[in-house]
């Protein structure tokens, strides 16, 4: 028991929670935005891989870290446009298109990476984002190092939660986005083009997914390797359900998930008579559990996965 207590009382553990949560926050917000406007985006796993790669490659070839983030967002948006074109303009199956984009984006990312960096014995590294202590606040006891000594993208993720919560519930644009996910026909009758709105929103959401990937290579690690996304994208899709499609709860879900991840990581090194694989399974099993618990309460956007065509019923 004292082992568990030691872990829970260490500052490093809680600092790690916020760090591990950051890509999940970006990704979950991105997926949430897409689903709010009525489009399931299963491309997330691949878009994250692509964001991780292009962000890293931008910095590796001389760009600065924010240029890397911008490149990842842009790359994500391009795949978002592709997803939008296929699912919204053409009305193709969102499941299949999303999976296709995941497979394409990830293999494309690995291809470009290998092209730029032919096989080397050890993967080349970059200088990643360093923790950026917030003046004054970071000197607070306990809370200071946990909350206010993170990297800049983590702060950005937290600001995004607040921004999206405000945008979705307090602005006309947010209302239009939410309405398009519920009833695109009604939005159309209001004189807003639901098709254009859907495509633009998916592009924005996918840009966030790209940022989620870029965080992995530019802040959490300092190099890129295939399979580094490790199912985080799918966890984000599960977290959207857990969040009941609300940004605030998305933050909560990401933190909860990251807590278990950080906890299992430390427990793994402290306890050695249990196979380490059992600990590694925990985050995935937990996501499934979250889906089961929340499925009953889920209030899915009504028009999710329903293509909209003008004048067709």
């Amino acid at each position, binding site marked *: 028991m004292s082992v568990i207590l030691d872990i829970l009382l260490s500052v490093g553990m809680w600092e790690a929670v916020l760090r591990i949560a950051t890509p999940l926050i970006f990704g979950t917000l991105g997926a949430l935005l897409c689903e709010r406007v009525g489009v399931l985006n*299963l491309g997330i796993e691949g878009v994250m891989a692509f964001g991780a790669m292009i962000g890293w490659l931008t910095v590796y070839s001389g760009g600065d870290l924010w240029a890397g983030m911008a490149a990842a967002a842009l790359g994500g948006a391009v795949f978002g446009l*592709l997803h939008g074109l*296929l699912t919204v303009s*053409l009305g*193709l*199956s969102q*499941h*299949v*298109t999303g*999976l*296709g*984009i995941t*497979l*394409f984006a*990830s*293999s*494309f990312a*690995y*291809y470009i990476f*290998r*092209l730029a960096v*032919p096989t080397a014995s050890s993967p080349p590294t970059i200088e990643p984002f360093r923790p950026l202590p917030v003046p004054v606040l970071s000197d607070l006891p306990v809370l200071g190092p946990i909350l206010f000594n993170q990297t800049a993208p983590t702060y950005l993720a937290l600001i995004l939660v607040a921004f999206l919560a405000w945008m979705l519930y307090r602005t006309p644009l947010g209302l239009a986005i939410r309405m398009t996910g519920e009833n695109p026909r009604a939005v159309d009758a209001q004189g807003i083009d639901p098709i254009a709105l859907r495509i633009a929103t998916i592009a924005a959401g996918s840009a966030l997914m790209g940022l989620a990937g870029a965080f992995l290579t530019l802040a959490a690690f300092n190099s890129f390797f295939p399979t580094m996304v*490790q*199912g985080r994208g*799918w*966890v984000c*899709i*599960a977290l959207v*359900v857990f969040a009941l499609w609300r940004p605030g709860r998305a933050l909560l879900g990401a933190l909860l998930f990251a807590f278990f991840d950080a906890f299992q990581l430390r427990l793994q090194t402290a306890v050695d008579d249990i*196979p380490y*694989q*059992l600990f*590694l*399974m925990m985050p*995935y*099993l937990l*996501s*499934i559990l979250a*889906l*089961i618990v929340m*499925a*009953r309460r*889920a209030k899915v956007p009504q028009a999710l996965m329903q293509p909209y*065509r*003008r004048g067709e019923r």
Partner: protein
Amino acid sequence: MRFERRDSVPPALTVLAPICAVLAALVIAGGLIALAGRNPVTAYGLILQGAFGSRLGLTETLTRATPLILTGLAAAVAFRARLWNIGGEGQFYMGALAVPAIGLLPFVAGAPAPIAILICLIAGALAGMVLLLGPVILKLRFGVDEVVTTLLLNFVVVLFVSMMIEGALKDPLAFGWPQSVPVPPAAELPQLVDRTRLHAGLLIALALPLGVWWLQSRTVFGLQSRAAGLNARAAAFAGVPLARTLMLVACLSGGLAGLAGAIEVMGVKGYVTTDLSPNYGYAGIVIAMLAHLHPLGVIAAALFSAVMFVGADSMSRALGVPSYIADVIVALSLLTMLVAIFLTQYRVRR
């Protein structure tokens, strides 16, 4: 510009669409090969040569196609009934792991070859089935979306396999390498061509799509599963027992993916490691879509993928183009195929 649904699909278009889709994917990927500073035509020539040009290349392609046909078929039967089984990879590994596990039983290891083979194949299929039934029960009972549950289980299963091959199923003779105890010799699938890896599993993989095709077109279950996929609500209204149909579809789909794993471990490798599958489960999803979910089309689509993978490997060695190009081509074909199928059903009007 807008799209208008065609009243009827011209048959020529149905045949031309997949060909055009694959050609379009090859042209786009050709651009990526050119990006690597290599001539795409040379590269494609080398891919074909690598996949067909020699006895070894040809048998290697067929060996590679064997698991792909089965995982593709597994995805196709599920998708037909709108059961989004994305867990083929996990089911594949469970099926593979079941073989050395059941081989530990003395009566299996000591049985004559045909019986040992049969028992191991059944064990593999059952393992895949059980793994898919969980998410399907969650879907039916709690309304949990199966896409995410089946996918997350893939990660769990690979960790489980890793735990088993370092634990209960670890081979003590493997010099500490994490690999499972070997498949019992009686359960090894016979070779089809001497001094190659091609094994009898290919025959099973070729027979099963025919069986599934018969099942889908000639039986009540097949009709019900297609009806469930076309319109679940209407099917339920017409008296199709949806829950039971979905469970049966899950058994078939998970069973096929598990069988793919069992056959791969019995025919090619002889023991289980965590790199037994180069994403056969995920590739199966693409293959099912490329085949337009048709069981016989799966064979052609699996062969196409196998040619790309085997050919790209040797092309990559010769030209230095990253072999990931094969995954790019196959994934691109899926996307272009989606558009091609759309264009057979709709016509573009200005």
